[in-house]
């Protein structure tokens, strides 16, 4: 019984982990159709923000929950103004440009911090006991944060004026523009928000995984697979994609080890996209956000 609870908890953690690393990408790629290959580096920058800030004596919670999204959000806005805004509607070009950006960011961070960085930021919060088993309290916290974050993004898109304008602009920029919306500004804000969400995710994961300039590469593929499998509805899609792929990955990792967990995840994504080329939300929950 304890084992079931412990494994179930791990499963939920794997799922929310996937949702956490994918959400920023879902906003930038799912909503804006910008293939952001620098997504992993946004996560990495969030992690470095936390490490630098805590080393400077700033409280770890402030660093993770406020500074990481703020810093990466600002970087996102700068990137959008200098690079992305010239490339809207040119998907392949955004792919190349953001790939270049990703190499640049890795290079800059490596030259500043070196290739290996001491991350003496331990996960805060203690240990959660489940009978004979124990799990990290911080993992529980991450699950909660992911749920809150998904809910927050949903509230923003559904009930705020910004959310309405953003959705309108993404659906039909010309019409939105004709109705007096500054689409250029909306694009900038949306990209910045996507980057901020990525930064928050990277910051939150830093105590669990440590930071390296190249850590983005370990996230990028999974994030894209999740978002593409999820389909066009960014929230429902990311959630559904994470539950399906994370669930499969978690179950197979537990039964047959990590290697098979990864294989099962990729296999599931291939089969899914063969049957539903437009992702889960291309067929189900089509009206959802």
């Amino acid at each position: 019984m304890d084992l079931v609870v412990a494994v179930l908890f791990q499963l939920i953690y794997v799922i929310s982990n996937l949702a956490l690393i994918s959400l920023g990408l879902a906003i930038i790629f799912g909503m804006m159709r910008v293939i952001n290959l620098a997504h992993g580096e946004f996560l990495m920058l969030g992690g470095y923000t936390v490490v630098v800030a805590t080393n400077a004596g700033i409280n770890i919670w402030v660093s993770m929950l406020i500074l990481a999204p703020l810093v990466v959000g600002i970087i996102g806005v700068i990137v959008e103004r200098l690079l992305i805004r010239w490339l809207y509607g040119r998907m392949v070009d955004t792919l190349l440009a953001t790939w270049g950006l990703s190499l640049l960011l890795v290079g800059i961070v490596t030259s500043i911090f070196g290739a290996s960085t001491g991350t003496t930021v331990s996960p805060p919060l203690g240990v959660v006991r489940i009978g004979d088993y124990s799990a990290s309290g911080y993992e529980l916290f991450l699950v909660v944060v992911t749920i809150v974050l998904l809910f927050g993004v949903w509230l923003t898109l559904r009930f705020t004026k910004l959310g309405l304008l953003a959705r309108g602009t993404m659906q039909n920029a010309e019409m939105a523009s004709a109705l007096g919306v500054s689409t250029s500004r909306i694009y900038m804000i949306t990209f910045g928000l996507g980057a901020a969400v990525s930064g928050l995710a990277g910051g939150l994961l830093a105590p669990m995984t440590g930071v390296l300039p190249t850590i983005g590469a370990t996230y990028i593929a999974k994030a894209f697979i999740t978002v593409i499998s999820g389909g066009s509805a960014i929230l429902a899609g990311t959630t559904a994609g994470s539950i399906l792929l994370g669930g499969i990955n978690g179950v197979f990792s537990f039964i047959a080890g990590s290697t098979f967990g990864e294989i099962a995840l990729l296999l599931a994504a291939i089969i899914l996209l063969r049957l539903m080329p437009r992702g889960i939300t291309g067929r189900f929950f089509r009206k959802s956000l």
Partner: protein
Amino acid sequence: MTFSRRSFLAGSSALALSSAPIIGRAQGSDKIIFASILDLSGGLDIYGAPMAETTKMAIDDINAAGGLLGREVELKLYDAQSTIQFYTQYATQAAAGDRAHTVHAGITSASREAIRPTLARFKTLYFYNTQYEGGVCDYNTFCTGSTPAQTVAKVVPYAMNKWGKKVYIVAADYNYGQITAQWMQRFVKENGGETLDVEFFPLDVTNFGPTINKIQTAKPDFVISALVGGAHVSFYRQYAAAGMNKEIPIASTTFGVGNEQTLISAEEGDGIIASYSYFEGANNPTNTEFLARLEARLGAGRPVMNELAVRSYEGAMLWAEAVKMAGTPDRDPVIEALRSGLSYNGPSGAVAVDPQTNHCNMNVYIGDLKDQKWNIVESYEAQPPADTQLVCDLVANPDQSTFLFENGLAAAGIE
């Protein structure tokens, strides 16, 4: 036909080329060329950067003592950027372009296997100064790093005596991890223990939650790890975050060679034990003097010394001793000198070439991690490379150039 300057040059250089084999290397320059290819950028530079520093120091030390045979030694250092393709390219450049007298190169087993055939083809003496899984049987190659029979065979019984006989193995999913895990199982069995499970991880895995659950289910007496690279450091963090480091201790054959102990906090790392042929605490005057000179050279921010870095220094020095003994930097006499059982007294203690395998007899230490520093708790003198000795005999048959453990231990005829 007009006799232009260009055609004259072309003709005369063709003449020079055709006469090159007779004149030999000494004609090109009076210097002795020492080439080194290491990963100084990219994911593997946590290993490569300290190795490059000690290699430079070794060459400076040799030149400060008047060079070799009255000639200056020139270091050609190449950065392979954690990319195998560059290894092959630079190995060719070093052997054919620089006409290096020796090449000290490679960190991962994959990089070693990429360049070993190239250097054998060009008859260029090759040193691999990295701890690895054993099994290279090559007349032209000297493997100075420790192998599983030297380290794993020590740390397994030590940990079993200390903690108990039930063992859980976690390892990186490529040839080093796979083969080392087979050695671990063998030594666990030999010491009357039981391996509960073996798990392999691709190098980019960062979530070890399911494994931690499985370890909690299996309830081993300790976990032994051969995890490799930056992403795998997450294992130690998540293990500690689940409170497991207080319950089930960890031994490792890889934790520390990339100075991982400085990448995680003291609370997360305390109590991990590992076995290498060098720790900074090695108690001998050569080591004290070596560390002091290193600090004078690089300042207080110098990298922490580990087996890979120190063995790179000792490997260069071992080669220098062989050149002195042979009286020439040419390959064949130097190999003979090395294979006479040549020994060098370095910071790790005596390192002596074993002519049967072209590996080394060396001191082995077990370290216990406390506050990000290794304390030596056990030391073993002059340990032979017993694993490779099982399958390789270069005395009986010198004409060999193979990697015998390529397909695992069973394929090499080891039970």
